[in-house]
Protein backbone atom coordinates (compact mmCIF):
# COMPACT_ATOMS: atom_id res chain seq x y z
CA UNK A 1 0.00 0.00 0.00
CA UNK A 2 1.34 3.42 -0.91
CA UNK A 3 2.14 5.63 2.10
CA UNK A 4 0.04 8.75 2.50
CA UNK A 5 2.24 11.80 1.72
CA UNK A 6 3.25 13.65 4.87
CA UNK A 7 1.27 16.79 5.54
CA UNK A 8 3.91 18.63 7.56
CA UNK A 9 7.18 18.28 9.45
CA UNK A 10 8.62 20.10 12.45
CA UNK A 11 11.25 22.79 11.89
CA UNK A 12 13.89 23.35 14.55
CA UNK A 13 14.07 26.80 16.11
CA UNK A 14 16.14 27.61 19.20
CA UNK A 15 13.38 29.30 21.19
CA UNK A 16 10.22 28.60 19.27
CA UNK A 17 8.89 26.04 16.80
CA UNK A 18 8.07 25.89 13.12
CA UNK A 19 6.40 23.64 10.58
CA UNK A 20 7.12 22.88 6.94
CA UNK A 21 3.83 22.04 5.26
CA UNK A 22 3.25 20.06 2.05
CA UNK A 23 0.21 19.74 -0.24
CA UNK A 24 -0.80 19.22 -3.84
CA UNK A 25 -2.45 22.62 -4.07
CA UNK A 26 -2.82 25.83 -2.10
CA UNK A 27 -6.17 24.85 -0.58
CA UNK A 28 -4.60 21.70 0.81
CA UNK A 29 -1.61 23.69 1.99
CA UNK A 30 -3.78 26.02 4.08
CA UNK A 31 -5.65 23.02 5.53
CA UNK A 32 -2.45 21.10 6.35
CA UNK A 33 -0.88 24.17 7.98
CA UNK A 34 -3.96 24.42 10.19
CA UNK A 35 -3.81 20.71 11.07
CA UNK A 36 -0.09 21.08 11.84
CA UNK A 37 -0.65 24.01 14.19
CA UNK A 38 -3.51 22.22 15.96
CA UNK A 39 -1.34 19.09 16.41
CA UNK A 40 1.31 21.20 18.12
CA UNK A 41 -1.24 22.56 20.59
CA UNK A 42 -2.99 19.32 21.55
CA UNK A 43 -3.29 15.68 20.54
CA UNK A 44 -6.55 13.76 20.56
CA UNK A 45 -6.45 11.02 23.18
CA UNK A 46 -6.86 7.50 21.87
CA UNK A 47 -9.48 6.84 24.51
CA UNK A 48 -10.92 10.35 24.23
CA UNK A 49 -14.66 10.66 24.03
CA UNK A 50 -15.72 10.47 20.37
CA UNK A 51 -17.59 13.52 19.24
CA UNK A 52 -20.20 12.22 16.85
CA UNK A 53 -20.93 15.67 15.54
CA UNK A 54 -23.29 16.46 18.40
CA UNK A 55 -20.77 18.61 20.24
CA UNK A 56 -19.15 20.15 17.19
CA UNK A 57 -19.56 23.68 15.91
CA UNK A 58 -18.73 25.28 12.60
CA UNK A 59 -17.04 28.65 12.28
CA UNK A 60 -17.03 30.66 9.06
CA UNK A 61 -13.91 32.67 8.46
CA UNK A 62 -13.31 35.40 5.88
CA UNK A 63 -9.98 37.20 5.66
CA UNK A 64 -8.13 39.58 3.39
CA UNK A 65 -4.37 40.21 3.13
CA UNK A 66 -1.78 41.65 0.77
CA UNK A 67 -0.39 38.34 -0.45
CA UNK A 68 -0.64 34.61 0.14
CA UNK A 69 2.05 34.54 2.84
CA UNK A 70 0.26 37.20 4.86
CA UNK A 71 -3.02 35.40 4.22
CA UNK A 72 -1.55 32.16 5.62
CA UNK A 73 -0.41 33.93 8.80
CA UNK A 74 -3.80 35.68 9.11
CA UNK A 75 -5.61 32.32 8.68
CA UNK A 76 -3.58 30.55 11.36
CA UNK A 77 -3.79 33.58 13.67
CA UNK A 78 -7.57 33.65 13.34
CA UNK A 79 -7.82 29.94 14.19
CA UNK A 80 -5.49 30.42 17.15
CA UNK A 81 -7.65 33.21 18.51
CA UNK A 82 -10.73 30.95 18.39
CA UNK A 83 -8.82 28.13 20.12
CA UNK A 84 -7.63 30.48 22.84
CA UNK A 85 -10.84 32.40 23.50
CA UNK A 86 -13.36 29.58 23.13
CA UNK A 87 -11.28 26.64 24.41
CA UNK A 88 -11.94 24.52 21.34
CA UNK A 89 -9.96 22.42 18.93
CA UNK A 90 -10.49 22.28 15.19
CA UNK A 91 -11.12 18.92 13.60
CA UNK A 92 -11.83 19.80 9.97
CA UNK A 93 -11.21 22.60 7.51
CA UNK A 94 -12.90 23.40 4.23
CA UNK A 95 -11.51 26.11 1.99
CA UNK A 96 -14.41 27.76 0.13
CA UNK A 97 -12.51 30.46 -1.74
CA UNK A 98 -8.80 31.25 -1.85
CA UNK A 99 -7.19 33.93 -4.02
CA UNK A 100 -3.96 35.89 -3.60
CA UNK A 101 -5.73 38.35 -1.33
CA UNK A 102 -8.83 36.66 0.05
CA UNK A 103 -9.78 33.54 1.98
CA UNK A 104 -13.18 32.15 2.83
CA UNK A 105 -13.25 28.95 4.84
CA UNK A 106 -15.40 26.86 7.14
CA UNK A 107 -13.79 25.18 10.14
CA UNK A 108 -15.31 22.53 12.37
CA UNK A 109 -14.35 22.42 16.02
CA UNK A 110 -15.12 20.64 19.27
CA UNK A 111 -14.51 21.40 22.93
CA UNK A 112 -10.85 21.23 23.99
CA UNK A 113 -10.97 19.38 27.29
CA UNK A 114 -8.32 17.40 29.20
CA UNK A 115 -10.66 14.38 28.85
CA UNK A 116 -10.42 14.43 25.08
CA UNK A 117 -7.01 15.92 24.43
CA UNK A 118 -3.44 15.82 25.67
CA UNK A 119 -2.49 19.48 25.94
CA UNK A 120 1.01 19.96 24.53
CA UNK A 121 2.17 23.45 23.61
CA UNK A 122 0.76 26.90 24.22
CA UNK A 123 1.24 28.79 20.96
CA UNK A 124 1.35 32.49 21.66
CA UNK A 125 1.25 33.66 18.07
CA UNK A 126 1.94 32.94 14.42
CA UNK A 127 4.96 34.88 13.16
CA UNK A 128 5.86 36.30 9.75
CA UNK A 129 9.46 35.25 10.33
CA UNK A 130 10.73 33.59 7.12
CA UNK A 131 7.18 32.71 6.09
CA UNK A 132 7.19 31.49 2.51
CA UNK A 133 5.06 29.54 0.07
CA UNK A 134 6.61 27.87 -2.97
CA UNK A 135 6.22 25.07 -5.47
CA UNK A 136 8.76 22.27 -5.40
CA UNK A 137 8.07 19.97 -8.33
CA UNK A 138 4.41 19.10 -8.12
CA UNK A 139 4.23 19.78 -4.38
CA UNK A 140 3.44 23.08 -2.79
CA UNK A 141 5.21 23.83 0.47
CA UNK A 142 5.16 26.50 3.12
CA UNK A 143 7.21 27.28 6.20
CA UNK A 144 5.85 29.08 9.20
CA UNK A 145 7.20 29.68 12.70
CA UNK A 146 5.19 30.00 15.90
CA UNK A 147 6.05 31.89 19.07
CA UNK A 148 5.68 29.47 21.98
Amino acid at each position, binding site marked *: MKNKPKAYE*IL*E*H*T*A*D*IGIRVFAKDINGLFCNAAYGMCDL*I*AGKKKDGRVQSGAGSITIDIELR*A*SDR*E*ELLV*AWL*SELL*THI*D*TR*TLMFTEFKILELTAHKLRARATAEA*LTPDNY*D*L*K*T*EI*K*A*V*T*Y*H*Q*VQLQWQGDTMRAEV*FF*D*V
Partner: protein
Amino acid sequence: MSKGASCVLEQIDEFHWRVPQTYKPGMRVEGRIVTDARQLELLLKDQAVEQVANAAFLPGIVKYSLAMPDIHWGYGLPIGGVVATDVDAGGVITPGGVGFDINCGVRLLRTALESEEIQGKVEELTCALYKAVPAGVGSKGFLRLTEQDERKLLVKGALWAVEAGFGTREDLEFTEEQGQMQSADPDAVFKHAYERGRLQSGTLGSGNHFLEIQKIDNIFDEKAAQTLGLHKGQVTIMIHTGSRGFGHQVCTDYVKIMLECLRKYDIHVPDRQLACAPVTSVEGQAYLGAMRCAANYAWCNRQILTYLTRQVFEKFFASSWEHLGMQVVYDVAHNIAKIEQHTVEGKQRTLCVHRKGATRAFGPGHIAVPLLYRELGQPVIIPGDMGRNSYLLAGTEQAMEESFGSTCHGAGRLKSRSQALRTLNQQTVLNDLRQKGICVRAATKGTICEEAPEAYKNVNDVVDIVHSAGISRKICRMRPLGVLKG
Protein backbone atom coordinates in the same frame (compact mmCIF):
# COMPACT_ATOMS: atom_id res chain seq x y z
CA MET B 1 21.24 27.67 7.77
CA SER B 2 22.77 31.09 7.08
CA LYS B 3 25.91 31.95 9.01
CA GLY B 4 26.76 34.99 6.92
CA ALA B 5 26.80 37.59 9.66
CA SER B 6 28.66 35.26 12.01
CA CYS B 7 31.56 35.08 9.54
CA VAL B 8 32.11 38.83 9.49
CA LEU B 9 32.08 39.37 13.24
CA GLU B 10 34.97 41.53 14.44
CA GLN B 11 36.21 41.39 18.01
CA ILE B 12 36.41 44.84 19.64
CA ASP B 13 37.58 43.78 23.10
CA GLU B 14 37.12 40.90 25.56
CA PHE B 15 33.35 41.41 25.78
CA HIS B 16 32.30 43.15 22.56
CA TRP B 17 31.92 41.99 18.96
CA ARG B 18 30.91 44.02 15.92
CA VAL B 19 28.80 43.19 12.87
CA PRO B 20 30.17 45.79 10.40
CA GLN B 21 27.68 48.15 8.82
CA THR B 22 29.05 47.07 5.46
CA TYR B 23 27.85 43.49 6.02
CA LYS B 24 24.50 44.18 4.30
CA PRO B 25 23.57 47.14 2.12
CA GLY B 26 20.77 48.87 4.00
CA MET B 27 22.23 48.57 7.49
CA ARG B 28 22.05 52.07 8.98
CA VAL B 29 24.40 51.31 11.89
CA GLU B 30 26.69 48.46 12.90
CA GLY B 31 25.66 45.52 15.05
CA ARG B 32 27.19 45.14 18.50
CA ILE B 33 27.11 41.98 20.62
CA VAL B 34 28.07 41.89 24.29
CA THR B 35 29.45 38.42 24.95
CA ASP B 36 32.68 36.47 25.42
CA ALA B 37 34.53 34.04 23.17
CA ARG B 38 32.93 30.96 24.75
CA GLN B 39 29.33 32.20 24.48
CA LEU B 40 30.03 33.44 20.96
CA GLU B 41 30.65 29.85 19.85
CA LEU B 42 27.16 28.90 21.05
CA LEU B 43 25.37 31.66 19.21
CA LEU B 44 27.00 30.94 15.86
CA LYS B 45 24.79 27.85 15.59
CA ASP B 46 21.63 29.67 14.52
CA GLN B 47 20.45 32.89 12.89
CA ALA B 48 20.66 35.24 15.87
CA VAL B 49 23.62 37.24 14.53
CA GLU B 50 21.84 37.68 11.19
CA GLN B 51 18.92 39.13 13.13
CA VAL B 52 21.24 41.64 14.83
CA ALA B 53 22.20 42.80 11.32
CA ASN B 54 18.56 42.88 10.16
CA ALA B 55 17.54 45.13 13.07
CA ALA B 56 20.16 47.65 11.90
CA PHE B 57 17.88 48.40 8.91
CA LEU B 58 15.27 50.09 11.13
CA PRO B 59 14.88 53.80 10.28
CA GLY B 60 16.10 56.16 12.99
CA ILE B 61 18.23 53.55 14.79
CA VAL B 62 21.01 55.17 16.82
CA LYS B 63 24.51 53.96 17.73
CA TYR B 64 24.14 50.24 16.98
CA SER B 65 21.83 47.27 16.88
CA LEU B 66 22.73 45.75 20.21
CA ALA B 67 22.53 42.23 21.63
CA MET B 68 23.06 40.94 25.15
CA PRO B 69 25.03 37.74 25.99
CA ASP B 70 21.83 35.68 26.32
CA ILE B 71 21.10 36.38 22.65
CA HIS B 72 19.39 33.62 20.68
CA TRP B 73 17.39 33.23 17.50
CA GLY B 74 13.99 34.91 17.71
CA TYR B 75 11.90 36.49 14.96
CA GLY B 76 12.43 40.07 13.81
CA LEU B 77 14.84 41.08 16.56
CA PRO B 78 16.81 38.28 18.22
CA ILE B 79 15.92 37.46 21.81
CA GLY B 80 18.38 39.54 23.81
CA GLY B 81 18.14 42.44 21.34
CA VAL B 82 18.15 46.13 22.21
CA VAL B 83 17.35 48.75 19.58
CA ALA B 84 16.93 52.48 20.19
CA THR B 85 15.44 54.79 17.57
CA ASP B 86 15.44 58.58 17.60
CA VAL B 87 11.80 59.69 17.94
CA ASP B 88 12.49 63.20 16.58
CA ALA B 89 14.44 61.94 13.58
CA GLY B 90 11.81 59.66 12.05
CA GLY B 91 12.68 56.76 14.33
CA VAL B 92 10.35 53.80 14.12
CA ILE B 93 8.66 51.49 16.57
CA THR B 94 8.32 47.81 15.70
CA PRO B 95 6.13 45.27 17.52
CA GLY B 96 8.73 42.68 16.44
CA GLY B 97 11.22 44.56 18.63
CA VAL B 98 9.07 43.93 21.68
CA GLY B 99 7.81 40.44 20.98
CA PHE B 100 4.43 38.79 21.34
CA ASP B 101 4.61 38.43 25.10
CA ILE B 102 4.54 42.14 25.85
CA ASN B 103 5.97 42.87 29.31
CA CYS B 104 7.01 39.35 29.91
CA GLY B 105 8.89 40.01 33.11
CA VAL B 106 9.95 38.89 36.54
CA ARG B 107 8.96 39.71 40.10
CA LEU B 108 11.01 38.84 43.16
CA LEU B 109 9.44 38.54 46.61
CA ARG B 110 11.43 38.27 49.81
CA THR B 111 10.19 36.31 52.82
CA ALA B 112 11.06 36.23 56.50
CA LEU B 113 11.65 32.48 56.19
CA GLU B 114 15.05 30.81 56.31
CA SER B 115 15.64 27.84 54.01
CA GLU B 116 16.03 25.51 57.06
CA GLU B 117 12.47 26.40 58.11
CA ILE B 118 10.98 24.94 54.93
CA GLN B 119 13.28 21.94 54.67
CA GLY B 120 11.11 18.84 54.17
CA LYS B 121 8.10 20.99 53.32
CA VAL B 122 9.04 22.19 49.83
CA GLU B 123 7.25 19.42 47.96
CA GLU B 124 4.01 19.99 49.86
CA LEU B 125 4.32 23.75 49.40
CA THR B 126 4.98 23.38 45.66
CA CYS B 127 1.92 21.12 45.36
CA ALA B 128 -0.18 23.72 47.19
CA LEU B 129 1.01 26.38 44.73
CA TYR B 130 0.29 24.02 41.83
CA LYS B 131 -3.33 23.68 43.01
CA ALA B 132 -3.83 27.41 43.57
CA VAL B 133 -2.06 29.02 40.61
CA PRO B 134 -3.63 28.42 37.19
CA ALA B 135 -0.87 27.27 34.82
CA GLY B 136 -0.41 25.52 31.50
CA VAL B 137 -2.21 25.40 28.16
CA GLY B 138 -5.78 26.68 28.29
CA SER B 139 -5.71 27.65 31.99
CA LYS B 140 -8.18 30.30 33.13
CA GLY B 141 -7.95 32.74 36.02
CA PHE B 142 -10.46 33.26 38.84
CA LEU B 143 -11.37 36.80 37.75
CA ARG B 144 -14.51 37.31 35.69
CA LEU B 145 -14.20 40.72 34.11
CA THR B 146 -16.67 42.76 32.13
CA GLU B 147 -15.27 44.77 29.22
CA GLN B 148 -15.57 47.88 31.41
CA ASP B 149 -13.48 46.21 34.15
CA GLU B 150 -10.94 45.11 31.58
CA ARG B 151 -10.60 48.64 30.19
CA LYS B 152 -9.91 49.96 33.70
CA LEU B 153 -7.37 47.20 34.28
CA LEU B 154 -5.56 48.13 31.06
CA VAL B 155 -5.20 51.76 32.15
CA LYS B 156 -4.37 51.13 35.81
CA GLY B 157 -2.24 47.97 35.58
CA ALA B 158 -1.10 46.68 38.97
CA LEU B 159 -2.93 49.59 40.64
CA TRP B 160 -6.20 47.99 39.48
CA ALA B 161 -5.25 44.80 41.31
CA VAL B 162 -4.25 46.72 44.44
CA GLU B 163 -7.53 48.68 44.43
CA ALA B 164 -9.38 45.35 44.05
CA GLY B 165 -7.69 44.06 47.21
CA PHE B 166 -4.93 41.96 45.63
CA GLY B 167 -1.95 43.87 47.01
CA THR B 168 -0.67 47.02 48.65
CA ARG B 169 0.59 50.44 47.57
CA GLU B 170 4.04 49.32 48.72
CA ASP B 171 3.96 46.57 46.05
CA LEU B 172 3.55 49.29 43.41
CA GLU B 173 6.42 51.36 44.77
CA PHE B 174 8.80 48.49 44.01
CA THR B 175 7.52 47.72 40.52
CA GLU B 176 9.01 49.17 37.33
CA GLU B 177 6.75 52.08 36.22
CA GLN B 178 4.91 51.49 39.53
CA GLY B 179 3.11 48.76 37.58
CA GLN B 180 1.23 51.31 35.50
CA MET B 181 2.53 52.66 32.21
CA GLN B 182 1.04 56.05 31.48
CA SER B 183 -0.80 56.85 28.21
CA ALA B 184 -2.19 53.36 27.78
CA ASP B 185 -5.04 53.58 25.28
CA PRO B 186 -7.78 50.92 25.53
CA ASP B 187 -9.37 52.33 22.35
CA ALA B 188 -6.26 51.22 20.42
CA VAL B 189 -6.90 47.58 21.42
CA PHE B 190 -8.94 45.38 19.07
CA LYS B 191 -11.78 43.01 19.96
CA HIS B 192 -9.83 39.74 19.78
CA ALA B 193 -7.32 40.99 22.37
CA TYR B 194 -10.10 41.81 24.82
CA GLU B 195 -11.54 38.33 24.22
CA ARG B 196 -8.21 36.56 24.75
CA GLY B 197 -7.37 38.61 27.82
CA ARG B 198 -10.65 38.34 29.66
CA LEU B 199 -10.19 34.89 31.20
CA GLN B 200 -6.40 34.78 31.45
CA SER B 201 -5.69 37.43 34.06
CA GLY B 202 -4.11 35.71 37.05
CA THR B 203 -2.62 32.82 35.10
CA LEU B 204 1.01 31.77 34.79
CA GLY B 205 0.97 30.49 31.20
CA SER B 206 3.37 27.86 29.96
CA GLY B 207 6.74 27.51 28.19
CA ASN B 208 9.51 29.19 30.14
CA HIS B 209 7.16 30.89 32.61
CA PHE B 210 7.42 29.75 36.20
CA LEU B 211 6.81 30.38 39.86
CA GLU B 212 9.75 29.35 42.05
CA ILE B 213 10.46 28.97 45.72
CA GLN B 214 14.16 29.79 46.02
CA LYS B 215 16.87 30.34 48.56
CA ILE B 216 19.67 32.88 48.39
CA ASP B 217 22.90 30.88 48.10
CA ASN B 218 25.43 33.62 47.45
CA ILE B 219 25.78 37.30 48.28
CA PHE B 220 28.18 39.37 46.18
CA ASP B 221 27.44 42.80 47.67
CA GLU B 222 26.49 42.62 51.36
CA LYS B 223 25.62 46.31 51.68
CA ALA B 224 23.37 46.33 48.63
CA ALA B 225 21.72 43.08 49.70
CA GLN B 226 21.03 44.58 53.11
CA THR B 227 19.36 47.60 51.52
CA LEU B 228 17.23 45.21 49.48
CA GLY B 229 16.32 43.27 52.64
CA LEU B 230 18.12 40.12 51.49
CA HIS B 231 20.61 37.75 53.12
CA LYS B 232 22.16 34.32 52.55
CA GLY B 233 19.86 31.39 53.31
CA GLN B 234 16.70 33.49 53.00
CA VAL B 235 13.71 32.08 51.10
CA THR B 236 12.60 34.13 48.09
CA ILE B 237 9.87 33.68 45.50
CA MET B 238 10.23 34.46 41.82
CA ILE B 239 7.32 34.92 39.39
CA HIS B 240 8.07 34.90 35.65
CA THR B 241 5.12 35.59 33.33
CA GLY B 242 3.70 38.22 31.01
CA SER B 243 0.58 39.59 29.35
CA ARG B 244 -0.79 36.20 28.27
CA GLY B 245 -3.14 36.02 25.26
CA PHE B 246 -3.95 39.70 25.57
CA GLY B 247 -0.42 40.80 24.72
CA HIS B 248 0.02 38.08 22.09
CA GLN B 249 -3.06 39.36 20.27
CA VAL B 250 -2.04 43.04 20.53
CA CYS B 251 1.25 42.15 18.83
CA THR B 252 -0.47 39.98 16.20
CA ASP B 253 -2.94 42.77 15.34
CA TYR B 254 -0.26 45.46 15.12
CA VAL B 255 2.30 43.48 13.09
CA LYS B 256 -0.45 43.21 10.46
CA ILE B 257 -1.06 46.96 10.59
CA MET B 258 2.66 47.69 10.47
CA LEU B 259 3.04 45.56 7.33
CA GLU B 260 0.76 48.09 5.65
CA CYS B 261 2.93 50.85 7.11
CA LEU B 262 6.03 49.46 5.36
CA ARG B 263 4.28 50.23 2.08
CA LYS B 264 2.72 53.48 3.28
CA TYR B 265 5.98 54.95 4.62
CA ASP B 266 8.25 53.26 2.03
CA ILE B 267 10.29 51.42 4.67
CA HIS B 268 12.48 48.46 3.69
CA VAL B 269 13.35 45.78 6.24
CA PRO B 270 14.70 42.27 5.52
CA ASP B 271 12.17 40.42 7.70
CA ARG B 272 8.40 41.01 7.75
CA GLN B 273 8.50 40.48 11.50
CA LEU B 274 10.39 43.82 11.67
CA ALA B 275 7.35 45.63 10.24
CA CYS B 276 7.30 49.10 11.76
CA ALA B 277 6.03 52.68 11.58
CA PRO B 278 7.44 56.01 12.68
CA VAL B 279 6.90 56.46 16.43
CA THR B 280 5.12 59.75 15.79
CA SER B 281 2.78 58.33 13.11
CA VAL B 282 -0.87 57.53 13.84
CA GLU B 283 -0.05 53.81 13.64
CA GLY B 284 3.06 54.15 15.83
CA GLN B 285 1.12 56.01 18.51
CA ALA B 286 -1.75 53.52 18.34
CA TYR B 287 0.67 50.61 18.85
CA LEU B 288 2.33 52.40 21.77
CA GLY B 289 -1.09 52.96 23.37
CA ALA B 290 -2.08 49.31 22.90
CA MET B 291 1.34 47.98 23.94
CA ARG B 292 1.14 50.00 27.17
CA CYS B 293 -2.26 48.38 27.84
CA ALA B 294 -0.62 44.97 27.45
CA ALA B 295 2.27 46.03 29.71
CA ASN B 296 -0.27 47.07 32.34
CA TYR B 297 -2.13 43.78 31.90
CA ALA B 298 1.13 41.94 32.63
CA TRP B 299 1.90 43.96 35.77
CA CYS B 300 -1.64 43.33 36.97
CA ASN B 301 -1.12 39.63 36.22
CA ARG B 302 2.07 39.40 38.29
CA GLN B 303 0.29 41.30 41.09
CA ILE B 304 -2.59 38.79 41.11
CA LEU B 305 -0.14 35.87 41.09
CA THR B 306 1.58 37.53 44.05
CA TYR B 307 -1.78 37.59 45.82
CA LEU B 308 -2.39 33.89 45.10
CA THR B 309 1.11 33.00 46.30
CA ARG B 310 0.65 34.96 49.51
CA GLN B 311 -2.67 33.16 50.10
CA VAL B 312 -1.01 29.76 49.71
CA PHE B 313 1.79 30.67 52.12
CA GLU B 314 -0.69 32.12 54.63
CA LYS B 315 -2.67 28.89 54.67
CA PHE B 316 0.41 26.66 54.67
CA PHE B 317 2.20 28.43 57.51
CA ALA B 318 -0.99 29.56 59.32
CA SER B 319 0.33 33.08 59.41
CA SER B 320 -0.35 36.36 57.64
CA TRP B 321 1.73 37.20 54.57
CA GLU B 322 2.82 40.38 56.31
CA HIS B 323 4.15 38.30 59.20
CA LEU B 324 5.84 36.02 56.70
CA GLY B 325 7.54 39.12 55.27
CA MET B 326 6.35 38.45 51.70
CA GLN B 327 7.13 41.84 50.23
CA VAL B 328 8.02 42.77 46.68
CA VAL B 329 11.76 43.34 46.21
CA TYR B 330 11.27 44.53 42.62
CA ASP B 331 9.46 43.71 39.37
CA VAL B 332 10.97 44.20 35.90
CA ALA B 333 9.80 43.97 32.29
CA HIS B 334 12.05 42.29 29.73
CA ASN B 335 9.89 42.59 26.57
CA ILE B 336 8.92 46.22 26.09
CA ALA B 337 9.42 49.49 24.19
CA LYS B 338 9.76 52.74 26.10
CA ILE B 339 10.22 56.39 25.29
CA GLU B 340 13.30 57.41 27.27
CA GLN B 341 15.84 60.23 27.42
CA HIS B 342 19.42 59.17 26.73
CA THR B 343 22.63 61.01 25.97
CA VAL B 344 23.96 60.08 22.53
CA GLU B 345 27.14 61.70 21.22
CA GLY B 346 26.90 64.31 23.98
CA LYS B 347 23.31 65.28 23.16
CA GLN B 348 20.15 64.51 25.08
CA ARG B 349 17.80 62.62 22.76
CA THR B 350 14.33 61.17 23.02
CA LEU B 351 14.63 57.52 22.09
CA CYS B 352 12.23 54.66 21.62
CA VAL B 353 14.16 51.87 23.35
CA HIS B 354 13.06 48.37 22.36
CA ARG B 355 14.11 45.67 24.81
CA LYS B 356 13.24 42.19 23.56
CA GLY B 357 14.60 39.70 26.01
CA ALA B 358 16.58 42.48 27.68
CA THR B 359 16.08 44.24 31.00
CA ARG B 360 16.19 47.91 31.88
CA ALA B 361 19.24 48.49 34.07
CA PHE B 362 19.26 52.17 35.02
CA GLY B 363 22.26 53.29 37.01
CA PRO B 364 22.59 54.79 40.49
CA GLY B 365 20.78 58.09 41.04
CA HIS B 366 18.26 57.64 38.23
CA ILE B 367 14.89 59.13 39.09
CA ALA B 368 13.04 56.03 37.82
CA VAL B 369 14.67 53.90 40.54
CA PRO B 370 12.71 53.67 43.85
CA LEU B 371 14.11 56.09 46.40
CA LEU B 372 15.13 53.28 48.76
CA TYR B 373 17.32 51.68 46.06
CA ARG B 374 18.41 54.81 44.20
CA GLU B 375 22.00 54.79 45.42
CA LEU B 376 22.41 51.17 44.28
CA GLY B 377 21.02 51.49 40.79
CA GLN B 378 17.90 49.76 39.54
CA PRO B 379 17.41 46.16 40.69
CA VAL B 380 17.58 43.76 37.74
CA ILE B 381 16.07 40.28 38.11
CA ILE B 382 17.59 37.54 35.96
CA PRO B 383 15.71 34.23 35.96
CA GLY B 384 17.71 31.12 35.12
CA ASP B 385 16.64 27.59 34.28
CA MET B 386 14.98 25.33 36.85
CA GLY B 387 18.17 23.47 37.76
CA ARG B 388 20.75 26.20 38.21
CA ASN B 389 20.39 29.76 39.51
CA SER B 390 18.69 33.09 39.24
CA TYR B 391 20.25 36.47 40.04
CA LEU B 392 19.56 39.89 41.39
CA LEU B 393 21.79 42.52 39.78
CA ALA B 394 21.87 46.31 39.81
CA GLY B 395 22.05 48.73 36.89
CA THR B 396 25.18 50.80 36.32
CA GLU B 397 26.25 54.13 34.90
CA GLN B 398 28.13 52.22 32.21
CA ALA B 399 24.85 50.64 31.08
CA MET B 400 23.45 54.16 30.63
CA GLU B 401 26.41 55.07 28.42
CA GLU B 402 26.79 51.83 26.52
CA SER B 403 23.52 49.88 26.32
CA PHE B 404 20.75 52.48 26.67
CA GLY B 405 20.44 51.41 30.31
CA SER B 406 19.93 47.73 29.44
CA THR B 407 21.31 44.33 30.34
CA CYS B 408 20.54 40.64 29.79
CA HIS B 409 17.25 38.97 30.76
CA GLY B 410 18.02 35.31 31.46
CA ALA B 411 20.05 32.32 30.46
CA GLY B 412 19.02 32.11 26.81
CA ARG B 413 18.06 28.88 25.11
CA LEU B 414 20.64 26.46 23.80
CA LYS B 415 18.55 23.56 22.48
CA SER B 416 15.33 23.81 20.51
CA ARG B 417 12.21 22.48 22.20
CA SER B 418 11.88 19.56 19.79
CA GLN B 419 15.58 18.71 20.26
CA ALA B 420 15.09 18.74 24.03
CA LEU B 421 12.03 16.49 23.72
CA ARG B 422 13.93 14.10 21.45
CA THR B 423 17.09 13.84 23.50
CA LEU B 424 15.91 14.07 27.11
CA ASN B 425 13.87 11.74 29.26
CA GLN B 426 11.34 13.35 31.59
CA GLN B 427 11.92 10.98 34.49
CA THR B 428 15.71 11.35 34.23
CA VAL B 429 15.39 15.15 34.28
CA LEU B 430 13.09 14.99 37.32
CA ASN B 431 15.41 12.57 39.12
CA ASP B 432 18.43 14.76 38.44
CA LEU B 433 16.59 17.78 39.79
CA ARG B 434 15.40 15.85 42.83
CA GLN B 435 19.00 14.84 43.59
CA LYS B 436 19.86 18.53 43.61
CA GLY B 437 17.02 19.10 46.08
CA ILE B 438 14.68 20.68 43.53
CA CYS B 439 11.02 19.69 43.37
CA VAL B 440 9.16 20.42 40.09
CA ARG B 441 5.46 20.37 39.20
CA ALA B 442 4.45 21.06 35.56
CA ALA B 443 0.95 21.44 34.15
CA THR B 444 1.70 20.60 30.52
CA LYS B 445 3.07 17.40 29.01
CA GLY B 446 6.53 17.94 27.60
CA THR B 447 7.37 21.01 29.67
CA ILE B 448 9.87 19.18 31.91
CA CYS B 449 12.07 18.17 28.96
CA GLU B 450 11.57 21.38 26.97
CA GLU B 451 12.56 23.44 30.00
CA ALA B 452 15.28 21.13 31.33
CA PRO B 453 18.54 22.81 32.44
CA GLU B 454 20.31 21.14 29.49
CA ALA B 455 18.12 23.17 27.10
CA TYR B 456 19.56 26.44 28.40
CA LYS B 457 22.90 28.22 28.49
CA ASN B 458 24.40 28.44 31.95
CA VAL B 459 22.99 31.62 33.48
CA ASN B 460 26.11 31.93 35.65
CA ASP B 461 28.20 32.43 32.49
CA VAL B 462 25.78 34.99 31.06
CA VAL B 463 25.66 37.00 34.29
CA ASP B 464 29.46 36.88 34.64
CA ILE B 465 29.70 38.57 31.24
CA VAL B 466 27.33 41.46 31.99
CA HIS B 467 29.04 41.91 35.37
CA SER B 468 32.56 41.87 33.90
CA ALA B 469 31.52 44.03 30.94
CA GLY B 470 30.17 46.51 33.50
CA ILE B 471 26.57 46.90 32.28
CA SER B 472 25.22 45.57 35.58
CA ARG B 473 26.71 44.21 38.77
CA LYS B 474 25.98 41.17 40.87
CA ILE B 475 24.19 41.56 44.21
CA CYS B 476 23.01 38.07 45.04
CA ARG B 477 22.27 34.65 43.59
CA MET B 478 19.33 32.37 44.23
CA ARG B 479 18.87 28.66 43.63
CA PRO B 480 15.53 26.92 43.08
CA LEU B 481 13.96 24.66 45.71
CA GLY B 482 10.42 24.25 44.39
CA VAL B 483 9.38 25.02 40.81
CA LEU B 484 5.90 25.41 39.35
CA LYS B 485 5.90 25.33 35.53
CA GLY B 486 3.06 25.89 33.10
